[in-house]
């Protein structure tokens, strides 16, 4: 309720801070990419000189370049020349921007290929279904675990155990049972998120203030009503936050899932391009992933504010 903040902070608008939140990393990236001497551990050869194994446009370590230059000078042959450069793993912002544009506008090469935006959409549907199944099964189970001690004692120990299984280890089994297309991918997303979801939801449920349950009991609410009309609405805002976090988690499994069975989607694109060392493409794809995630999260946050009008506004330290 109280919203006391120090004057300085009040003057800085939230929007400015949010902008800074993205601007600062971008500036850092630009600093590292464009300002000489900040990092740039490599040299890009512009003229190999007399060094036998240098080639134009080759990237070589600073020390090696210095050594060869010295050797050339000592041996009175033409020293090489070059300009400082970053390793290919860290493309510069403008390169990534170009890659972003190219990747979105290049038509598919082959009959069996799709447009990039179609790959992205495909990835989104995989996440959607995997997470949906996870919620459909995990939410009720998690809530039951949190609400009923016996259910928790029965289900949680094994889930605790199973959550340490790495999801990719089930890839083969998933393909054997579910075929090679989307189903096994969805299954991996499911396996990766389900047990975590159950435990997180159970914890959240257990955090509900016991007074509400006591009140409901004295008002004659039977178990099922306590569950549906007290536990559920009582934890809903927190549950909603949990699910937003978990949805992000599901995305991190995508890169594993999309390599199972047939390769597809945006994260397969990432792996492929990383293998070709086209890191500008990789970064472009990362940015797309981040934007999709961020936008969906913002959307969910906006919706949350409308969904739970009774939530009090929280204040921070002052």
């Amino acid at each position, binding site marked *: 309720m109280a919203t006391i903040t120090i004057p300085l902070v009040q003057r800085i608008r939230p929007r400015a801070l949010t902008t800074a939140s993205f601007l600062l990393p971008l500036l850092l990236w630009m600093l590292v990419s464009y300002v000489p001497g900040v990092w740039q551990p490599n040299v890009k050869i512009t003229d190999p000189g007399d060094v036998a194994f240098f080639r134009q446009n080759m990237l070589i370590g600073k020390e090696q370049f210095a050594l060869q230059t010295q050797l050339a000078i000592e041996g009175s042959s033409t020293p090489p020349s070059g300009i400082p450069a970053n390793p290919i793993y860290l493309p510069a912002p403008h390169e990534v921007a170009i890659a972003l544009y190219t990747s979105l506008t290049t038509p598919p090469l082959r009959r069996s290929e799709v447009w990039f935006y179609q790959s992205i959409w495909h990835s989104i549907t995989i996440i959607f279904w995997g997470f949906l199944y996870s919620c459909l099964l995990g939410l009720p189970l998690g809530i039951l675990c949190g609400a009923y001690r016996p259910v928790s004692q029965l289900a949680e120990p094994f889930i605790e155990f199973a959550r340490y299984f790495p999801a990719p280890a089930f890839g083969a089994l998933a393909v054997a049972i579910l075929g090679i297309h989307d189903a096994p991918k969805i299954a991996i997303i499911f396996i990766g998120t389900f047990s975590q979801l159950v435990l997180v939801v159970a914890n959240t449920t257990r955090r509900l203030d016991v007074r*509400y349950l006591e*009140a409901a009991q*004295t008002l*004659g609410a039977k178990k099922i009503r306590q569950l549906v009309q007290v536990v559920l609405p009582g934890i809903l805002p927190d549950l909603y936050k949990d699910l937003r976090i978990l949805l992000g988690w599901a995305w991190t499994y995508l890169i594993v899932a999309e390599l199972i069975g047939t390769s597809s989607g945006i994260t397969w694109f990432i792996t492929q391009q990383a293998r070709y060392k086209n890191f500008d493409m990789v970064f472009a794809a990362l940015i797309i992933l981040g934007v999709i995630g961020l936008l969906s999260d913002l959307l969910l946050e906006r919706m949350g504010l409308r969904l*739970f009008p009774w939530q*009090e506004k929280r204040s921070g330290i002052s």
Partner: protein
Amino acid sequence: MASVNSAAPVKTPAKLAFRNLGKTFMFQGAPKQALLGINAEIETGEFISIVGASGCGKSTLIRIAAGLERASEGGVYVEDNLVVQPGPDRGMVFQQFSLFPWLSVKENVMFGIQDQYPDKRLRGDAALDWVDKVGLAEFAGYYPNQLSGGMQQRVAIARALAPGPKVLLMDEPFAALDAQTRGRMQRHLLEIWRKLNITVVFITHDLEEAVLLADKIFVLAPNPGRLVATLPIEIPRVKDGLERDKYEPNFAAVLKDLSGLLVTSTDAHG
């Protein structure tokens, strides 16, 4: 055939009975006796007040009666049935606020009368009735955290009364109310008590309030919580047969008696 009509008076079981009730909490590994050997019977339709020093076990006692806390020895019986869990036959107003924050005032009251009024419209109307009775008609759409402390407590009272419980357990329900509202609420309570013939157990720190309302006052003493006296109040209920008149000659005397009982009980141990 003969025995059927025999007029041997069948003693109806007490509405509420505390039988050798004891409660021990564990405190840092050591047991701590909060209640000890409480024995008392409360008849149907009686209005009981419980008074006693802070921390003497009043809330614990009423919570056991509600079925929210488990007795360590003995137990609480409703018509000879041991209380093992809460139920709608025993309404409860908590010492600390316990409204559902996600429901509006009206919806909070509607919660307890779902079975009585399956129809949502009718249920809403019934709830509004109760909200109005506690003087909050214009706040029916507010959420609890938008209300003052006293307003919240009034909603809690309306919520507890709405289902028409046979036993009403109230833990300092009027402590957060101003004198005027409190007077109004007291009268409401008595009206309902009379009309529905319910049994009321009412914890209060206000001795005047206890004498004003109760048929009988239980005096609890601390360390460990024991029932040291049961004081029947014989002063007639003059105002429509509901609350007593403070200015009645007997009133001050009874109040003094009660006060004395409390002082001795507390001082003996505290």
